[in-house]
């Protein structure tokens, strides 16, 4: 088992190197640093001296090879340096933003999975009937609505019209849950369509297996069959697809956070886009990739833990 884990981790390292090569190409080679300097300097027509000064300040004027080694060391030692737009250390912002992001996304994640499993079980119980048909159709409808509209409509209806929740903003500490509630509701509803459809597929795959037929032949009630047999076996693909999403709990959702004013990592990325801050985007891309690879490794480990057939190979 340990050897399996180590092998998966070692596979991740060349991928990370590849990703940093890609980001280096994108940010240093494909876009000339003069352009970045021009965008960040507020003067309309910056003089070559001003550009040069800015480049020197942010370390863009060194030769390509030196920049490459600096880029690699920056990323792998997680020393992200200072942001291009306002010169503040990036790592501090990341540390500050990870907390709110995690709080919001973990709620969305957990509530979403529970809701989706419940509805999928419900649909699987009534499979083949009109209930199932309408639930599936509803899921396709829900999946077709743009994410943005959910957020805007949710904010408008629940925040402004019904005044159940505060519209936006965030205050740390004990009262934080008040501000997280509306984004959580919106986030859960958004994921409901696709999730229910997916989980229902997993459950129906299990229901058509022989062991379920045997259980029914032995006289088990439909409820026992569903909850004890189908759910446990459908849990394998459910867990493995869900574990892959855990690293994203830290990155947060760019849209949810920017709409609801939650100061998480998603909002930080949004600000970086608005101010065309390449340094922050570089850091977020690397962080995101690192977390995705961790997610893949976790998924493989989880899969090996839960499904004994995988362990034996």
């Amino acid at each position, binding site marked *: 088992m340990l050897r399996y884990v180590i092998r998966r981790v070692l596979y991740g390292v060349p991928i990370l190197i590849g*990703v940093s090569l890609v980001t280096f190409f994108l940010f240093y080679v494909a876009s000339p640093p003069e352009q970045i300097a021009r965008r960040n300097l507020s003067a309309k027509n910056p003089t070559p001296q001003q550009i040069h000064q800015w480049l020197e300040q942010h370390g863009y004027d060194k030769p390509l090879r030196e920049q490459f080694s600096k880029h690699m060391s920056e990323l792998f030692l997680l020393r992200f340096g200072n942001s291009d737009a306002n010169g503040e250390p990036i790592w501090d912002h990341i540390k500050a933003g990870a907390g709110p992001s995690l709080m919001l996304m973990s709620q969305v994640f957990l509530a979403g999975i529970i809701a989706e499993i419940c509805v999928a079980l419900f649909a699987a119980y009534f499979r083949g009937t009109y209930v199932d048909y309408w639930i599936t159709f509803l899921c396709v409808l829900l999946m077709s609505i743009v994410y*943005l*509209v959910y957020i805007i409509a949710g904010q408008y209806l629940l925040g402004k019209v019904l005044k159940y929740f505060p519209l936006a903003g965030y205050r740390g500490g004990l009262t934080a849950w008040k501000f997280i509630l509306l984004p959580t509701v919106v986030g859960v509803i958004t994921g409901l369509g696709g999730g229910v459809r997916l989980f229902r597929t997993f459950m129906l795959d299990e229901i058509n297996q022989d062991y379920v037929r045997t259980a029914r032949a032995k006289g088990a009630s439909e409820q026992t069959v569903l909850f004890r047999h189908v759910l446990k076996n459908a849990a394998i693909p459910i867990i493995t697809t869900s574990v892959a999403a855990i690293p994203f709990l830290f990155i947060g959702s*760019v849209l949810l956070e*920017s709409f609801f004013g939650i100061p998480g990592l998603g909002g930080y990325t949004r600000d970086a*886009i608005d101010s*065309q801050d390449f340094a922050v985007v570089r850091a*977020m*891309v690397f962080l995101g990739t690192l977390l995705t690879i961790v997610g893949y490794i976790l998924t493989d480990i989880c899969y090996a833990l839960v499904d004994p057939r995988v362990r034996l190979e």
Partner: protein
Amino acid sequence: MERIYPILNNVIPLLVVAVIVVAIVRAGREPLWKEAYRRLGRNRMAILALTVIGLYGLIGVLDSLGWQDSPTSDRMTIIDRMFTNVPKERTYSAPLAIVTTGEPKPHPLKGKHLLGTDGVGTDILYLTLKGCRTAMIVGGFTSLLATPLALLFGLMAGYFGKRVDDAIQYTYTVFSSIPDILLIIALMLVLGRGLFNLCIALGITAWVGLCRLTRGEVLKHRDREYVRAARALGLSNTRILLRHVLPNLLPIVIISVTLGFSGLVLEESILSYLGIGVDPGTGSWGNMIDAARVELAREPVVWWNLASASTALFILVLAFNIFGDALRDAVDPRLRSS
């Protein structure tokens, strides 16, 4: 050279439509597709969805064909000309209203607006129709960019195996490890805003999934008898891949592209909201939703901008989802997910 551009601008959309129609008709001669068309024909929802998609495509084509009345005037497309009689108002107005909304002293409107007007007085129906072209180009052009690339790499990886396979797998794992939205943000920041830059960025994120799918399918076909027979007959690798293996992959590729289309259109709207999508001047539903965000906070509420854009988006995405599912069921019922 300058004189070719206007002609080219009009010929290209017509050419695209012609190619699509010819491809569909010629495919109907194959037994696989003939059977699929027959099954599709019996599915009323699928026909409805296809009609809707065709309608959107028609509007998109109508918006692409245009000409200048005189050498100095702007190029006006057919949709532009249909709306020349609809005047531009001062500011917002509700659907089918006679006065403007939200002003201390409402001004009477100069014309009738079926869906209302936006902040600068442009007719909302006109903006919505202009968005069709953007959506169709985003979905279509991106697929056009991503599919050959993905097919090429998938075929090479699956067929040649070993080193080539490892190299291609490494490449697409690298690209798929970067979270999609972050990769698109990075690409758009570097390339700048614009419709074609967006298509390139979306294409780079989309090719990975199709490549993986193709590689899986090619691996399944590599050891089949017909491939072995072709190799024994001495056919070159290229010929085997292109004329024998590829046609067997096409159904799955087409289904995957159809289902992916809706995802691309949705992503365009999200990216336009974030400010890294199409230019603000181009009509797009994403830009309309972006503008609508602050409108909901006004008193009285300006809801028609958001409603039109999101309804238009919703209907198109729903149509593609329904048609994609129906197509998948028609081509091979075994692929059904439920």
